[in-house]
């Protein structure tokens, strides 16, 4: 049948049906994997693979047909008990289903696709022939380098550098005129400024194509010690291997380069038989016709401009207020005052629109985890339902990239330490199948991400033991603390309650790193746990990192900005009340706040600024950092304002221009050109 003249009704029926079948196979596979499947499950899968094969053959989708055919063969061997089902088989099966899904999604969007399925079919066939054969490693980086120009392409073709799901998704939008290559670059170990080297490589490649993604993603900020070698790039270009190779090889200190063409341009001559291109029919229009791809740098520049605009807007409004007070009746002033609300409104809208352009749904992060949980659970013999909710929730892209590590850590912990083994759960009369829920939602100006499991919960007794063992606190101190406060110790550096270190989690990086990473994003992480019921981690993040609402204060000649999100209350203390409200206990000053004594930190003293002598009155700002409360003493309040954060990341830290600066997370430039130092509450509280 001519695939270009398929009746639309048949086409959509075909798509609907195969989608159901693919989904059902996936569910059945999970059942099989968990030992819950039986002969009937295998029969089910067999039947569905068979009907996918038939339908796709009718429709003329050759790849789908060949793939489902090989899967069907494998299944028939399993059904006839000639092969025993094992993890390798199921994993390969999942790969097959992934490819089917991919083809299906392209077909249903009416998009063209290019996919090499030969290798996978070989893998399936080899399993069918001999189930004991081991499966080839996914990435083989020890192959030959590219010294020999002649054999280049051959060597590269043999390398199995696959696109990740995320990269695949990005590539879907790329014009078919372009080849897509995945490049793996290994730099010399002793390369200084690896991030700059990576930047140079990417910058050069931009001259010949479009860099779609890199791994690590935000490599510019990674210091040499943490730089993950190899560096990977996905690029869309019309150029050939040789040109890309030459381009990269013009850069020094590169040990090896591997290039793989992961999608061939449609323009290029004859189509090899392992690749098939299906043209879209005219009446199957692309879904995303109203979107365009924009260079992120352009949006960032726009954001910077909007930021500057906001600063001047704030200043303008202040001047307007003053003018109104001074020259109430002046007609020009009246006019100005009537225009100002419009400027204010437009500024706010502008800011929100640009911010929303930087927002991405969380699914690009969340979608990484189901497979991970599945694999981990498989390794540790646990049954887990992994549920994801609210992955459409949007958040600033700068935050998204930084979320992967903390979430991976927490979810790994949940699987490894939180969830019990099947036997243990049975003993406890719990459902054998455990549950982990990863959810996200908007709450006011925050995004809340929760990871909840119904495992064994955190044992307060174990934590207490560990605290004493690690000398983090004395036994008497602990007795005064509530369970809520004790549980916070899991975020302390050097704390780990896991009895043994496993290869799944607990490699010496603890939750303190998670807390620090979240803190860097101006977020907070909390934990709630009930013994034998489960544990819940709650991460609260701001929608954006670039603009925040802050309280400005002045100490001596310096202006500081305290993020409003951390402030609980601001209290004025008159001269005659100072002695009454602020007490000294030993070295420590405490403030009476709602019948609690909370630690006092003087901003002036902390930053070693000379204190003004005429202390007629003081302000106490009560700030919160997760469960802790602190009282900041300040001399003058300047008011509340939106500020644009300028990061100083490139200048602060070991070996950087300004060295280690404590207590400051960034700076902001105010309307009149003065600097405000943004107070890093987390680091001040840590002391």
């Amino acid at each position, binding site marked *: 049948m001519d695939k270009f003249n398929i009746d639309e009704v048949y086409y959509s029926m075909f798509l609907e049906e195969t989608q159901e079948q693919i989904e059902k196979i996936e569910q059945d596979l999970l059942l099989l994997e968990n030992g819950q499947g039986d002969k009937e499950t295998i029969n089910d899968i067999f039947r569905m693979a068979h009907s996918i094969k038939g339908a796709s053959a009718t429709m003329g989708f050759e790849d789908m047909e060949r793939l489902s055919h090989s899967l069907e063969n494998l299944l028939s061997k399993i059904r006839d008990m000639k092969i025993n089902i094992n993890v390798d088989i199921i994993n390969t099966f999942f790969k097959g289903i992934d490819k089917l899904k991919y083809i299906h999604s392209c077909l249903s969007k009416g998009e063209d696709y290019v996919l090499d399925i030969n290798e996978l079919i070989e893998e399936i066939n080899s399993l069918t022939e001999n189930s004991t054969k081991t499966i080839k490693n996914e990435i083989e980086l020890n192959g030959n380098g590219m010294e020999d120009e002649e054999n280049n392409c051959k060597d590269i073709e043999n390398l199995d550098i696959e696109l990740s799901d995320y990269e695949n998704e990005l590539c879907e939008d790329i014009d078919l005129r372009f080849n897509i290559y995945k490049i793996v670059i290994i730099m010399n170990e002793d390369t*200084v*400024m690896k*991030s*700059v080297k990576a*930047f*140079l490589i990417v*910058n050069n490649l931009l001259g010949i194509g479009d860099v779609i993604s890199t791994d690590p993603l935000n490599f*510019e900020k990674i210091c040499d010690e943490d730089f993950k070698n190899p560096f990977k790039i996905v690029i869309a270009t019309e150029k050939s291997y040789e040109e890309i190779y030459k381009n990269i090889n*013009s*850069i*020094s*200190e590169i040990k090896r380069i591997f290039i793989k063409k992961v999608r061939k341009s449609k323009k290029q001559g004859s189509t090899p038989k392992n690749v098939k291109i299906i043209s879209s029919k005219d009446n199957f229009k692309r879904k995303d016709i109203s979107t365009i791809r924009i260079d992120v740098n352009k949006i960032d520049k726009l954001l910077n401009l909007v930021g500057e605009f906001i600063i001047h807007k704030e200043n303008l409004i202040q001047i307007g207020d003053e003018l109104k007070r001074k020259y109430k009746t002046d007609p020009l002033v009246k006019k100005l005052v009537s225009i100002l609300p419009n400027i204010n409104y437009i500024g706010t809208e502008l800011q929100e629109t640009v911010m929303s352009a930087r927002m991405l749904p969380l699914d690009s992060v969340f979608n990484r985890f189901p497979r991970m949980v599945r694999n981990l659970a498989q390794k540790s013999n646990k049954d887990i339902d992994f549920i994801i909710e609210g992955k459409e929730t949007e958040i600033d892209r700068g935050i998204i990239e930084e979320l992967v590590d903390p979430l991976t850590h927490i979810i790994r912990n949940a699987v490894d330490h939180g969830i019990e083994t099947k036997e243990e759960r049975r003993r406890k009369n719990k459902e054998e199948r455990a549950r982990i829920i990863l959810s996200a939602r908007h709450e006011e100006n925050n995004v809340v991400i929760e990871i909840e499991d119904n495992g064994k919960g955190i044992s307060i007794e174990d934590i207490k033991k560990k605290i004493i063992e690690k000398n983090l606190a004395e036994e008497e101190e602990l007795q005064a603390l509530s369970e809520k406060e004790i549980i916070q110790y899991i975020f302390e550096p050097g704390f780990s309650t896991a009895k043994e270190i496993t290869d799944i989690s607990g490699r010496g990086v603890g939750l303190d790193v998670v807390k620090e990473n979240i803190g860097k994003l101006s977020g907070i992480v909390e934990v709630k746990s009930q013994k034998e019921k489960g544990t819940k981690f709650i991460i609260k993040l701001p929608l954006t990192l670039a603009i925040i609402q802050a309280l400005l204060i002045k100490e001596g000649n310096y202006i500081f900005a305290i993020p409003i999100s951390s402030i609980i209350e601001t209290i004025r203390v008159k001269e005659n009340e100072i002695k009454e409200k602020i007490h000294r206990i030993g070295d420590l000053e405490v403030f009476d706040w709602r019948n609690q004594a909370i630690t006092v930190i003087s901003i002036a003293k902390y930053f070693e600024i000379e204190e003004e002598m005429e202390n007629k009155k003081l302000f106490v700002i009560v700030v919160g950092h997760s469960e802790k409360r602190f009282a900041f003493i300040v001399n003058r309040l300047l008011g509340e304002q939106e500020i644009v954060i300028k990061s100083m990341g*490139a200048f602060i830290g070991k*070996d*950087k*221009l300004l060295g280690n600066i404590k207590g400051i997370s960034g700076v902001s430039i105010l309307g009149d050109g003065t600097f405000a130092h943004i107070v890093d509450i987390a680091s001040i509280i840590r002391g």
Partner: protein
Amino acid sequence: MGVLIVDDAAFMRMTIRKMLEKNNIKVVGETTNGKDAIEKYKILNPKVVTMDITMPKLDGVDSIKEIIKIDPKAKIIVCSSRGQESLVMKAIACGAKSFIVKPINEKRLIEEVNKLL
């Protein structure tokens, strides 16, 4: 047609010159600031420029921008210190072809210059 050395520190200029000459690479000129570098570039037409990133008058990045305007094919190597990553990236975005990090290693310097010559 050799190398133009731009650095405000006399010691650095001398070091680089010695390393280059030892390896039979010609040095066509030296200068101490970015502004002068642009003038010298026009006159000397060097094959390669080694450019310090922080200098008085006109700094490395601005000087690179100007030289690239005059000659888009100019081959400029940025000399920087550790901790100046973001500046070097800026320079690369403006057209610098490569970079080396101080303290300068002779082998590295020669490798970079030879790649561009």
